[in-house]
């Protein structure tokens, strides 16, 4: 474990060389100085190597893939992969959350993807990474667009023929957006 292999040594020397050149150029940042904390064993990679591996989708659409889908196309995907647990209309079942319908002002409130989730991006992100539970990541990017469009349609958020893609998805206005109070600075 403590025998440095050739690759490690060379990448370490490379990063030292980089630090030196940055320093000479007067660009040495605080974080570059701090790198001296560790042995510098990280292997450089390129973002292009993470295509298809990095599944993170942000509310502004960052991370959304190519492709598109409509609710009309998504109905079959939904009925085949989701309806057995989430119900034909997204009403949920015992121990399985409802996806559509519901309201936060009833007693008790019914928090569904439609009534509660603030961003459509979360639907895309979550379905792609974690659903269906027996075969997560088995749906294609296009199928995810389709099924997300269908779930949004079940709650009446988009029309049946609305084309969901990387441009339109961030524009979808969720009913409960704007009702979340950011507490992240209370640390």
């Amino acid at each position, binding site marked *: *474990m403590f025998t440095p292999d050739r690759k490690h040594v060379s990448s370490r020397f490379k*990063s030292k060389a980089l630090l030196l050149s940055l320093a000479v150029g007067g660009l040495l*940042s605080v*974080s*570059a100085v*701090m*790198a001296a*904390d*560790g*042995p*510098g*064993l*990280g*292997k*450089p*990679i*390129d*973002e292009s190597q*993470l295509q298809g*591996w*990095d*599944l*993170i*989708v*942000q*509310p*502004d659409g*960052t991370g959304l893939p190519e492709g598109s889908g409509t609710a009309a196309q998504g109905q079959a995907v939904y009925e085949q992969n989701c309806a057995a647990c989430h119900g034909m209309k997204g009403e949920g079942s015992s*121990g*399985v*959350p409802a996806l559509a319908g519901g309201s*936060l*002002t009833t*007693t*008790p*409130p019914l*928090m569904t*993807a439609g009534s*509660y*989730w*603030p*961003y459509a991006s*979360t639907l895309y*992100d*979550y379905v792609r*990474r*974690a659903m269906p*539970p*027996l075969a*997560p*990541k088995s749906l294609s990017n296009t199928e995810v667009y389709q099924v997300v469009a269908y779930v949004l349609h079940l709650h009446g958020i988009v029309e049946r023929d609305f084309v969901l893609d990387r441009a339109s998805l961030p524009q979808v206005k969720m009913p409960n957006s704007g*009702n*979340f*109070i*950011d*507490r*992240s*600075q*209370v*640390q």
Partner: protein
Amino acid sequence: MQNNNKSERVRSDEKIALLNDQVAGNGLISRRHLLGLSLAGAGGLVTSSVLAADAGLLTRPAWSMTPGRDPSEYGNPSSHAAQIKRLAPAPNAISPGTGASRTPLHLLQGTITPNSLHFERHHSGVPDIDPAQHRLVLHGMVRQPLEFSYEDLLAYPMVSRVHFLECSGNSGGNSSGASASDGSAGGIHGLLSCAEWTGVRLSTLLDEAGVAAGASWITATGADAASLGRSVPLDKALRDVIIALYQNGEPIRPEQGYPMRMFVPGWEGNVSVKWLTQIKVTDGPANFRDETSRYTELLPDGKSLQFTYPMGVKSVITSPSGQMTLTRHGLHEVTGLAWSGSGSIRRVEISADGGRTWADALIDADQRELALTRFRLPWLWEGAEAVLQSRATDSAGNVQPSRAAWVAQYSPANRYHFNGIQSWAVSAQGEVKNVYA
């Protein structure tokens, strides 16, 4: 007969002395009895009743007459302690591997949770990860995206920190249930554990990659089937987050994220992403499912709190606690755990009369930040009904709220971040039950 009379007389004298030392209603006794300054009688009170029960010659047990077993490679608890287990649910048929097991807090002492009993919460089961194939990728808004192997990280400078970990949904049954459930301390509050975590500072790795100007968050995902993701503000990530590789001295257990987890001290457990494989530096949170749909707190007006990170100041009496029965009158030790996601524990008060009067419990002197604290106080119970409560105060001055005050803050649908005071009712027969008081 003469001895018995003498014993009765001593007992009554000692009782008077103990009652003179009462510091709060219904039998709570001064902490002095825990500090070695006790009245000589306190020990005698217990000893006399034990001797009376065990009269007769002592015999030597069989295990003192024959050699025991050989040393072993990996130890196990005594077969006589085999009932000390996590409280685990039946398997989840719909979403395999999704669920939680709880630490049996009421069966443990001290503050460190054994690795086999650390609580679990999984969102798609425990993956069986080959560390030789596992990678941690650090990318996004960095000068140079990097990939680290497990072996790489083992070569980095490490830190060891004792910290509690509490699920945001811990104790949620007491938050919203119409009536108090018949639960044990572990059953209600056991999504709480405390361990020594050893690993590499995340700041070391972020510095190696070089965080770009304008970055303000990290988004992290695990290598489990759910690829669970959470976002953490960059300032916290640089402050005290570690990539944990060891738990109580041994490689972290599979159910805690082997070979590596992000450990975020003091914050709701879900952000300490297990089986960590990706850290993407960003200029905003990803708004993952587990920070929008879940782990947000619905308020009475329909708005919700999002990114509530530190766990609130909290305590629970672990003995006597729910489902236990006091089998004798006399001196008992009330003991439990206190913790806060905003610092260390300054004070724990105990009440035996449902919160009418309070006494300061003894807490260990070497308080750690963001770790469990053990508290204790003697209690003389002679068969009167009682309601035991504990109330913690942290180093930031936060005081644990009553259950009613906590409930009033939220929608009845919210079960996250419950830190209201726990009440255990003791009946005249000594039965201890979870109650709302």
